[in-house]
């Protein structure tokens, strides 16, 4: 009832606010005022419904929080959580996804495969940034710089010296990591807003350098005729090459997930998380802050470098416009939407954010609007992201038994 009253009030308020715009119209030709009362009615109805749904959703959210605890105070795992913890379901899902991934290029057109490759590149970017932002808690608004650096590394090495893709792939990653360390040094002591500003600046500087250093980077016109990924010198048609790049990218994603997952559950990953949780406690427990921060930046940047190399090989042409703040923002949104620190969440968010706009071209004009709306809704209803990070369960049964034997 309370929410009903409030919704009525909201509706009345909006009717009042929109009154001059939607109801009154001065017809200059006839010199008279038109009163469009119907509009007012519509505004009232629409805003009443919106407000009512909004309140109901908020209320449900509050109730859920209260209900989620059973009598022991243990959290009841939701279906999503079970999905990722129960190994039986988990393996089946992975198998299904892998099969779908293998069939995909033989069912869809090369245009769609190309888009998928791009989406997978963003998956790798998301997973990389997830290390810096999600695990280590270091904001990075200029992540795209490393992506660009990787892309230009391959573009230059290939067009100038003819080095092939496979040789340049690790180089791109390492160059990215090197710049990660370079960015890391000056911002070791910064936190919060300052960190945001400096990393943002770094991203812009990278783009400006690509744009204006005509001698090396060919300026705004970019670098063309970059070689596609090769397979032992085999001649490939355009379509075959697309499929080949696709599978390469699938393997790349698997590789990234494998490595990131292992790091997460290791001494290094725990140090990153501790850094995110409390810097002072972290150093007081004997963790070298400088080294841990630098490794987090470098390792995040490493994946961006790799992704950059593949990006320029897929496009065969790059220019500075692929490396704007927009890309950084998208990758960051992927991490936030997916859930800080959660690998599966990031993958889903990357696919959603890159594929959806491609398939909803009709709404292209509203893309940013929808984007912003989704982010706001997420922050209100699921601030932890689509899938919250599942903490690893350590098997302690052996240790516990030993204790019982002793007593």
């Amino acid at each position, binding site marked *: 009832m309370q929410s009903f009253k409030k919704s009525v009030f909201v509706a009345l308020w909006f009717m009042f606010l929109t009154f001059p715009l939607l109801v009154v119209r001065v017809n200059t030709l006839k010199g008279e005022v038109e009163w469009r009362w119907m509009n007012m009615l519509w505004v009232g109805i629409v805003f009443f419904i919106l407000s009512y749904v909004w309140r109901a959703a908020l209320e449900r959210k509050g109730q859920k929080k209260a209900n989620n605890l059973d009598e022991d105070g243990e959290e009841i795992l939701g279906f999503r959580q079970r999905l990722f913890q129960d190994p039986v379901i988990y393996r089946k899902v992975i198998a299904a996804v892998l099969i779908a991934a293998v069939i995909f290029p033989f069912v869809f057109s090369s245009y769609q495969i190309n888009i998928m490759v791009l989406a997978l590149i963003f998956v790798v970017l998301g997973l990389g940034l997830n290390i810096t932002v999600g695990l280590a808690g270091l904001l990075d608004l200029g992540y795209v710089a490393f992506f660009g650096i990787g892309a230009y590394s391959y573009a230059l090495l290939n067009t100038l010296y003819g080095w092939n893709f496979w040789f340049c792939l690790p180089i791109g990653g390492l160059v990215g990591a090197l710049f990660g360390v370079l960015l890391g040094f000056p911002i070791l002591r910064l936190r919060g807003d300052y960190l945001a500003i400096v990393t943002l600046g770094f991203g812009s500087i990278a783009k400006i350098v690509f744009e204006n250093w005509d001698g090396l980077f060919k300026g705004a016109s970019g670098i063309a005729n970059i070689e596609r990924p090769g397979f032992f010198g085999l001649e490939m048609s355009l379509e075959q090459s697309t499929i080949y790049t696709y599978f390469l990218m699938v393997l790349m994603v698997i590789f990234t997930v494998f490595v990131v997952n292992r790091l997460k559950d290791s*001494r290094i990953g725990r140090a990153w998380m501790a850094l995110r949780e*409390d810097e002072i*406690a972290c150093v007081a427990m*004997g963790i070298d802050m400088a080294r841990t921060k630098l490794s987090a930046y470098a390792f995040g940047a490493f994946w961006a470098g790799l992704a950059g190399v593949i990006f320029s090989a897929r496009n065969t042409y790059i220019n500075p416009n692929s490396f704007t703040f927009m890309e950084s923002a998208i990758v960051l949104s992927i991490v936030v939407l997916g859930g800080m620190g959660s690998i599966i969440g990031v993958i889903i968010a990357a696919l959603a954010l890159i594929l959806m706009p491609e398939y909803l071209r009709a709404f292209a004009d509203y893309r940013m609007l929808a984007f912003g709306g989704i982010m706001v809704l997420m922050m209100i209803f699921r601030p932890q992201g689509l899938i919250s990070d599942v*903490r690893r369960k350590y098997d*302690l049964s052996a240790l516990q038994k030993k204790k019982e034997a002793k007593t």
Partner: protein
Amino acid sequence: MSVLLEVKGLTMDFGGLRAVDSVGLEVRQGEIVALIGPNGAGKTTFFNCVTGIYTPTGGDVLVHPPGKKTRRINGLKPNVITTTGMARTFQNIRLFPNMTVLENVMIGRHCRTTTNIIGAVLRGKRTRAQERETIEKSYRLLEKVGLAELAGEFANNLPYGAQRRLEIARAMATDPFLLLLDEPAAGMNPQETHELDALIVRIRNEGNMSILLIEHDMKLVMNISDRIYVMEYGKEIAKGTPQEIRNNPKVIEAYLGEEVHA
């Protein structure tokens, strides 16, 4: 008994405020030493200087790790000091809230383990053995402080008293020869304080660790300390055995003659 920590003339200024004014202190092997004083006396600041959170304005902090050579640690980074063998807890609890209880303790093992990025990715035999050892040691420490049942719980879900004990376990995981505890009993009820009392003595006896603690709970301090230092307004006003401190007129004055007899 050999001296482990030797602080001479330690001074710390914050702008015009002298929070610690040439304080000297010693902790010997196997001792429980207490540092007491009214609010704002500079006790926590003293800890922060010794553990490297602050760089002291003046004085010397010398550590004599058993079996190793003496080191002057003024101005070294906190992590370096922890690695030499001194670990601390915080007055305003600083756990890693969104990590599990076990993981919190495992972080303490970081400076005693060696796995690097490549080792962590390949996860070879050595890495796995080290990881198992980390888990086992951490779990044993949790048993010691009575938190083993809560190993999988998030640290921020623990009750207050348990959080304090978890901080102690985490500090012990760094294999220190000296534990520095900043008000470990703050916010505990009498029952919990009593248990803590026993725990600290047990750590000293079994763990081969010496302990320096700041505490307001006089009963606990008088019960377990071998020696006590008293600070007021940044200065050291007394030191001695609990008996001597109890009867020291300066200390009685500083505490308005109440709490010392509690």
